[in-house]
């Protein structure tokens, strides 16, 4: 872990408003991050084809190809964490963005310091858990070190956040984890993280690991309490 902090994390900002893009890029650079800028969705996707980034900062309100579409296209080829930038925390944009594949979100007006803390939290935890041992849940096998999941021997493509979520639940199988606990362990939030993050990610995870996502047996909901992987 020690060496990770020495390598500047790379961030791609996809934002059409030049003023915000410039100032956020400058502020993040002053926080020690390696920042690239893209002024449109198309330009952003082009950049992503050229090189890897550790985190993508994506504005949802883009002219042309909008943020949701950009997010879906990124997800087709990559598991790079996406933080979306939205104007309203309480709008349906948040849920729509999360469903399109975003890992987290920030609302305007945000402060670059907080944003860089979120970026670091996402990057840090996406580098594996350091566990060597494999975990099996029914016909699902998790290899924490490699960051891979197989179901009935077939590989399941999970984003890093989905993978982390599944691992946290599997490590404590039989126990109910509240949304607050999951927000803290998976996203690095304190008590007041948005529990929709958990709900949407559980939904996404179920689509990939459950035989019947509308009748889940791997990740079950415990009403009023949280989620659990039955022992």
């Amino acid at each position, binding site marked *: 872990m020690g060496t990770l902090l020495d390598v500047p994390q790379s961030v791609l900002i996809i934002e059409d408003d030049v*003023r915000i893009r410039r100032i956020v890029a400058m*502020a993040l650079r002053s926080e020690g991050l390696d920042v690239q800028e893209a002024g449109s969705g198309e330009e952003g996707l082009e950049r992503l084809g050229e090189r890897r980034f550790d985190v993508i900062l994506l504005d949802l309100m883009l002219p042309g190809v909008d943020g949701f579409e950009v997010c879906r296209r990124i997800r087709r080829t990559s598991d790079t964490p996406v933080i979306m930038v939205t104007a309203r925390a309480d709008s349906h944009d948040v849920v729509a963005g999360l469903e399109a594949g975003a890992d987290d979100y920030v609302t*305007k*007006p945000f402060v*670059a310091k907080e944003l860089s803390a979120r970026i670091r939290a996402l990057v840090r935890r996406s580098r594996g858990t350091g566990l060597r041992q494999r975990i099996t849940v029914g016909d699902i096998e998790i290899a924490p070190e490699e960051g891979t999941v197989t179901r009935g021997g077939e590989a399941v493509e999970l984003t890093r956040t989905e993978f982390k979520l599944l691992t946290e639940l599997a490590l404590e199988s039989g126990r109910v984890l509240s949304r607050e606990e999951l927000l803290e362990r998976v996203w690095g939030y304190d008590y*007041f993280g948005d529990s*929709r993050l958990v709900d949407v990610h559980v939904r996404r995870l179920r689509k990939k690991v459950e035989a019947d996502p509308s009748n889940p047996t791997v990740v079950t909901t415990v009403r009023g309490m949280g989620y659990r992987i039955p022992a």
Partner: protein
Amino acid sequence: MSSTVRPPGAPPAAVSAPVAPPPGGGAPVPARAARAAARPARGAHRVRRRLRGLRPHTLRGRATFAFTAVMLALTTVLVTGVWVTVSQYLLVQRERATLVQTTANAAQVERGLAGGVAPAQLLSQLARETGSTSLLLYGGEWSTTSLRIGRDDLPAELRERVVDGGPARQRITADGSTMLAVGVPLPQPGTAYFEIYSLEELDSTYRVLGIVLTAAALTVVPVSVLAGWWVTRPALRPLDRLAGAAAAIADGALATRIDPRGDPSLEPLATSFNRTADTLEERLRSDARFAADVSHELRTPLTTMVNAAALVDGYRDALPPDGRESLDLLRSEVEAFERLVADLLEISRADAGSTDVALEEVCLADLVRASLARRNLAATSPADLDVAPAAEDLRVRIDKRRLERVIANLMDNADKHGDGLVRVSVDRLREHARVVVDDAGPGIPVQERSRVFERFARGSGSIRVSSEGSGLGLSLVQRHLQLMHGEVAVEDSPQGGARFVVRLLVVEAD
């Protein structure tokens, strides 16, 4: 013969005079009612004035009250009428009977005297009703059939009048009770026959009649209250619904409309009410939308400003002192502006009827603990949390983000306007979980307590106590709580400061 002592058409009050008051005390109702009836206008005025204080506040209560009053007035008139008619009739009957007997006996006395029978013997032979006494004045001598009633019981005026040749009658008091004296002159000079009748029976008839009528009048009040309450219910149902809908709109449920189905009388009212509500809702929504749009548009430039100021702050060591001071001013203003925009957006969205309330069940003590921990991180003096043992596991159904704002705003208010947060406590009062926030300030005067929740309300007078805070914080507290079926109130803290109390319904464990 009809030249009685009592002039005809005397007020009924005189009639009731011999009647003993009904058991239970007080003057008999008919008499009082009769007096009131004699001066209807003034009496009604006085009664109305006296009753104004007792007037019920609900429409139905007032209708019932009016119904009862009308019923009572009608009953009073009826009872008085019955009393006057019956008592007059009984008295006339009695007077006629006594006159007939007296005249017959006088004729017999006259014949006896002519036949030379001694007065005493004559009187004893007369046919009299029980309880009546005969007196005879003959040759200057008085004879009587009773040991207890004699000449002195007859008023001098009556005696003279009869002796002078005019028959007369008068109500007298003899032997401790009211009696009727009837006198008839006889042909011989200085000779007259008197008979004194007991009115005892008539009195007792009056008494019974009085009791019956009073009881009837008194029964009318409770019966008509019940009847009025029952009868007005269906009649006032449309108004009830109208009042309910208007109250709901006043409470912020702008989408409330009246469905006139099944009630034709409500239809025109409902139509115009609904049209008014539509207009009101549309206007409020467009106002709120405008405010939301404005503050939304401000968020993007704010992001630039906040980050630019923060970035410049990184080079503050390179700035001259004036530049540093300017930077601090800029940052604090931008921060205040940011809070104002956030609060404005929040409140206008609530006004615009945004219904994205995400209710979930959480442990209240944990939420308050986390809020306080967050506040204590930045505050100069940490405040204590006091959770009652019974409140440790209380669960409430709330929107976490909103309740966090509520608690944060209350703590913020205590810090900025109440000389600092002193204590936050969580406890339970019956079915409510309570969060109590105490500050160290001077408290809030009773007359200003409802005003503190108004938008941009400032401390007493027009002096702006502090430049911090958006002026929307407490108003937002109230809005957020409304959306979560909770409420907030201001009280005095036992330590002298202001105390804000948040109440939320407890979710009982299964």
